[in-house]
Every structure is written in structure tokens, then in C-alpha cells.
């Protein structure tokens, strides 16, 4: 008896909780039993008269939604005009919904980047690497809202898939060879005034997360030695200047997009979802930054040979890659800015096929050349496939999508080793090889393999988009011009920025900080306090012992 009482006393909360749960289940079960599902309703007859409001539940869903749901002055009897109005509103609604939802997916790619970059760097720098990836989201967004969006999209003209209100109508242009060269937009600063508009806001969200993708790429190549303060300034620089200006040239109605209209070069520089605008910009910025910053201590020996510095958490990197691959279903199919453009199914399939072939060919390349299929390179291979298919995803067949990914899988392994051992640029996560090199390959591959099944009227040029192998030599020329322009503009602007900042303020942490790990000196906190020696020692020796939680010190009850 005493035993039973002791058990009841120690477990009384659990017993009470179990009783409550049991009561809830009993009540719920009774309610559910009363609520028998109705027989599936017959599909609504093509109603001449307005259907009466359904009084029965519709578990099959065939009777829900009909003529009575069309907004009309006389309910159930819409005029043709009212039906057309409704159809137009629905079309734009679907497109805005699609743009927003895919934008949300792209936003989540920030998490993928954070995990890949942190997993492929060392444990002593995790808080620093993670927080660069975290804060770029906030910093980039702020800079883009202040002026980046206005420079990029201020002269776009009509957003045709989202209602065509044409509020973004101010592009700064210069005249060369008798043609207008759009250089940057001038409307939409702070999203204020006449750009306070649903279509513009949807476009802002989508373009903002794209810009943030580019902005978070250099943090990987420059990880483990970059001063956090310098990174913060860079975040504003990229989101307010370099990215928006190049993006304006390609997506905002600027001069690269008009090469077709003005000079007969295909459809101008075509980049469906941003192999050049997003990835190559990020990768080339990463190259300039990593060159100015220099390699990590211990990366290169005196004779110039490179030492591998293994990342601390491969599972983290692989999870990040999967999150990125998932987010890419927003990145590429979302770039139609139209859920009603059913090409999205082709785009989505092309995207996943290229990611598969990228990973497979990276695996075989590393296996064949170095004896083992390197995990981090297989991850890079999948990402390279995704980067490369980003520009051509809307314009190629599934066969070419697979080939484009396969080439990028090999290209990324070769480029990563080339950048490390020949160029002697230290890129801990392979960002330059993945995004820079394969971004270039992506836009060029569009100029080779676009098969002429899509893109009628793209960039204001009649006819579909055709690459070199489908009779579109001038399209390939436009892609080459776009690629060279991207490299030249982004590299020089970024290099000058980094160099100037380095000379004036210094970009790099001191060697002591780098050896100790950036977490405590730069961020004030270890990423993994329990396994990072110095902090543990400090605690143990009473340096900064935190107060133990009260519970731990309280004597055990009821004994």
C-alpha cells in the first residue's frame, strides 16, 4: 500500500495528464462518430439557374466552386464583362501567388548556403561563418530596399505577368551608336510613392531573395579569415551597387537585354533564372574577395603546394545541399513569374535532371581520378549542375539539361583543383568553381543548346530562343558578350572595393585570431562551447563561470 502511494505521489502529474488525454480522446471519438461523412455530391449540372448554396458537405470537392463564386452584381448571373474581369484577376492572382511562393522557397536557400559553408569549414569558425550567412539576409534585404531594387528594376516597364501596371518606368540611358544603352533604373527607392503596389511588391520579394543568394556566395570563399565588420560593409555594397546594376542590364531592361533588339544578336543576353546574374556575380565577387584577402594560414606550403583543410561537418554540408536543391524548385520555375506559364514543368524537370547528372559525374570524376568519390565534391557537383541549368532551364530539352549538368559535374571538380593549385586562390567551400565557373558555363550552354521551343517575344524579340546548334549563332554571341561583361564589370568593381577597403580599414583578422578561430575574437561566442578547449578551461578555472541553474543545486525532492 505504501508502495502504491509512493508511486502515485511521484507520478501524479503524469497520471493527471494521462487522464486528461484519455478524456479528450473519448470526447473526440464520440464527436467524430456522430459526424458521418455525406455521400459524394453529384457534380454540379451546367447550371442555367444559379446553384443554391450547397447545404451538404462536399468531401469529393467536385461541387465546390462554380458560377456562384464569380463576383457579379447579380449573384449567379455574371455578365461577360464580369466573367472576363474575374478571369483576368484570377490569372494575375495565380501568377502573384506563384511568384511569392517560389520566392519563399528561394529565401530558404539561405539556410542551405549557411549549412554548406559552415559544414565545409572548421569547427573553430562556425559561429562566424554561420552568422555571415545569417546576417547577409538582413543586411542585403535592407540595402536592396533602400536602393538596390530601384537601380535594378526601376526601368523595367510593365510586369506583364502581374497585371501590367507599368509603374517602374524610369531607366537611365546613354546613347551609343545611335542606340539607347540602359544603365540603371531610377524608381522604387524604399518602395515608396508610386511603387507602393502589389505587383511591384511581389517582384521586390522575388528579386530580393535572388540578390541575397548572390550576396551569400562570397562568404564561403572568404570564410575563416574575413573581419565581420568588413563583411557587413560588403553586404551593403553588393546589394546596393554591383548586383543591381548588372541585374538591370540583363533583367531590368538594360543594355545586355537589348542586344537583340538593337543589334540583332538573338534575343539579347538571355539568362532565364540567373546563372550569370546571380551565380556568376556571386562567384566572381568571391574570386575578387578571396584574391584580395589571401589564403588561410597553413593552406599553402613554402614551395607553393596546397594543403587540404578538411571541413568539420560533412553531414551539415550534405543537408545544406539538399536544402539548396529543394529551393532551386523556386529559383528556376519561379522565374517565369507566372504560375499560368505551364513551361514550369519542363523547367522543374530540367532543373532536377541537371542536379542529378552534376552529382553523378562529379562522383565518377573524383572516383576515377583520385580513387574515392569525395563527399564534398559530390555536393559541389550537384550544386554545379543546378547553377549551370539555371540560365538554360527554360529553353532546352531534358537531354541537353542532363548533358549540361554532366559537364558541370566534371567542370566543377577540375575548376576547384585548378583554382586551388594553379591560381593559388584559397576557396574553402568551392564557391568560385561552383558559382563562378558554372555560372559562365550555364549562360554559354543556353547559347549552344536552346532548342527553339520557348521564349517567343523574350526581351522584345520575335520568335523563340535558339542556340548555336539550333541555328542561332547570334544568340551564342550575345551569351558570350553577357559572360565577358559579367566577369569584367563584377570583377573590377568588386576588386577595387575590396582592395580599397583593405588598404584603408583592413579586411583580414590578425594571424593570432585566425589561428585561435574567429568565433570568440570576432563574435564573442563559440559555436560549440563544450568542445572548443579554451572556453571550457576558462569556465573550469573560474574565469567566467556562469551561475548554475537553480534546479541543479536544489536537493532532490521526496527522499
Amino acid at each position, binding site marked *: 500500500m505504501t508502495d502504491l502511494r509512493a508511486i502515485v505521489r511521484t507520478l501524479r502529474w503524469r497520471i493527471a495528464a494521462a487522464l486528461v488525454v484519455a478524456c479528450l480522446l473519448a470526447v473526440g471519438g464520440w464527436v467524430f462518430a456522430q459526424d458521418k461523412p455525406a455521400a459524394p455530391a453529384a457534380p454540379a449540372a451546367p447550371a442555367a439557374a444559379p446553384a443554391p448554396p450547397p447545404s451538404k458537405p462536399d468531401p469529393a470537392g467536385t461541387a465546390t466552386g462554380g458560377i456562384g463564386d464569380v463576383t457579379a452584381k447579380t449573384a449567379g448571373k455574371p455578365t461577360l464583362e464580369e466573367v472576363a474581369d474575374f478571369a483576368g484577376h484570377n490569372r494575375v492572382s495565380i501568377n502573384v501567388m506563384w511568384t511569392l511562393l517560389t520566392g519563399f522557397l528561394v529565401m530558404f536557400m539561405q539556410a542551405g548556403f549557411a549549412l554548406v559553408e559552415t559544414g565545409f569549414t572548421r569547427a573553430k569558425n562556425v559561429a562566424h561563418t554561420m552568422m555571415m550567412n545569417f546576417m547577409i539576409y538582413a543586411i542585403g534585404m535592407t540595402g536592396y530596399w533602400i536602393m538596390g531594387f530601384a537601380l535594378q528594376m526601376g526601368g523595367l516597364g510593365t510586369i506583364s505577368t502581374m497585371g501590367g501596371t507599368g509603374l517602374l518606368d524610369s531607366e537611365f540611358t546613354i546613347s551609343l551608336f545611335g542606340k539607347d544603352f540602359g544603365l540603371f533604373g531610377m524608381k522604387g527607392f524604399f518602395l515608396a510613392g508610386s511603387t507602393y503596389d502589389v505587383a511591384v511588391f511581389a517582384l521586390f520579394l522575388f528579386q530580393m531573395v535572388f540578390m541575397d543568394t548572390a550576396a551569400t556566395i562570397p562568404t564561403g570563399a572568404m570564410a575563416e579569415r574575413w573581419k565581420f565588420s568588413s563583411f557587413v560593409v560588403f553586404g551593403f555594397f553588393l546589394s546596393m551597387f554591383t548586383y543591381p546594376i548588372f541585374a538591370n542590364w540583363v533583367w531590368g531592361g538594360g543594355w545586355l537585354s537589348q542586344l537583340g533588339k538593337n543589334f540583332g544578336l538573338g534575343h539579347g543576353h538571355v539568362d532565364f533564372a540567373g546563372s550569370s546574374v546571380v551565380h556568376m556575380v556571386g562567384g566572381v565577387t568571391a574570386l575578387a574577395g578571396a584574391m584580395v584577402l589571401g589564403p588561410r594560414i597553413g593552406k599553402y606550403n613554402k614551395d607553393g603546394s*596546397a*594543403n*587540404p*583543410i*578538411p571541413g568539420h561537418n560533412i553531414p551539415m554540408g550534405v543537408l545544406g545541399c539538399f536544402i539548396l536543391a529543394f529551393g532551386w524548385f523556386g529559383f528556376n520555375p519561379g522565374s517565369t513569374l507566372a504560375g499560368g506559364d505551364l513551361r514550369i514543368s519542363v523547367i522543374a524537370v530540367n532543373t532536377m535532371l541537371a542536379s542529378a547528372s552534376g552529382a553523378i559525374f562529379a562522383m565518377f570524376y*573524383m572516383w576515377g*581520378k*583520385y*580513387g*574515392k568519390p*569525395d563527399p*564534398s*565534391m559530390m555536393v559541389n557537383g550537384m550544386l554545379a549542375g543546378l547553377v549551370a541549368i539555371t540560365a538554360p532551364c527554360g529553353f532546352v530539352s531534358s537531354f541537353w539539361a542532363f548533358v549540361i549538368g554532366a559537364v558541370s559535374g566534371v567542370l566543377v*571538380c577540375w575548376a*576547384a*583543383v585548378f583554382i*586551388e593549385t594553379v591560381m593559388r586562390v584559397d576557396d574553402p567551400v*568551392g564557391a568560385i568553381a561552383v558559382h563562378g565557373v558554372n555560372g559562365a558555363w550555364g549562360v554559354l550552354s543556353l547559347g549552344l543548346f536552346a532548342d527553339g521551343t520557348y521564349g517567343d517575344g523574350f526581351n522584345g524579340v520575335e520568335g523563340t530562343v535558339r542556340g548555336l546548334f539550333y541555328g542561332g549563332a547570334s544568340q551564342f554571341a550575345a551569351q558570350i558578350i553577357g559572360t565577358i561583361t559579367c566577369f569584367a564589370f563584377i570583377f573590377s568593381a568588386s576588386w577595387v572595393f575590396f582592395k580599397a577597403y583593405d588598404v584603408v580599414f583592413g579586411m583580414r583578422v590578425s594571424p593570432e585570431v585566425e589561428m585561435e578561430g574567429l568565433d570568440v575574437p570576432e563574435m564573442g561566442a563559440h559555436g560549440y562551447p563544450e568542445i572548443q578547449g579554451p572556453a571550457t578551461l576558462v569556465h573550469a578555472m573560474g574565469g567566467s563561470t556562469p551561475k548554475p541553474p537553480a534546479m541543479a543545486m536544489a536537493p532532490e525532492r521526496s527522499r
Partner: protein
Amino acid sequence: MKKIEAIIKPFKLDDVKEALTGAGIIGMTVTEVRGFGRQKGHTEMYRGGEYTVDFLPKMKIEIVVPDGLADKVIGLITAAARTGSIGDGKVFVEPLEEAVRIRTGEHGDSAV
């Protein structure tokens, strides 16, 4: 009393522990350590580059036993930890001056 210190391959820890507990040894201390002997280190690959790992992970077991048991324990450890390949580890034995059980204050053999 003798203090026996065995450095073994990590995956042999369970075998050794079971051999010892089966023979009535009731306590031991285990530490993850790194080191090398004749085995030297080994090379690994990362992103196409080769690097050497000099200090290999090993397990160190420390056991204190009365003098009479020492030979038996050494035999058990050697048998359980052996794979026959290089890198199986070593056993070191040293005399121990004193042992105290903190809870009761017992000294010597009765404390281990």
C-alpha cells in the same frame, strides 16, 4: 598493487571490456587518446588533395589490480585486443604505491 595501462584500437574496446568484466574485474577508466608507433599515421583525401594524419585515434584503458591478478589481466587484454596487424597497441604495467576509496576512506587492495 599494479597499474595496468593498455592502449588499444578503438573498435576493440568492447571486446576488452567484456573479457575483463567476465573475469571479475569491476572497474576501469577509459580515455580517448591519439598517437602513433610503428604503424605511423595514414593518408586521407579531401577535395583532390592528400594529407597525412600522424596521430591516430586510440583508446587508453587504465586498471588498478592487486599484484596477484596483474598477469591474468594482461593476458586477457592482449588476447582480446589482438587483431594480428600492426597498430594493435601496447600494455604498460607499473607498481602503484597507494589507492584510496574516497567514499569510505579504505586504503590499499580493498580500495580497488
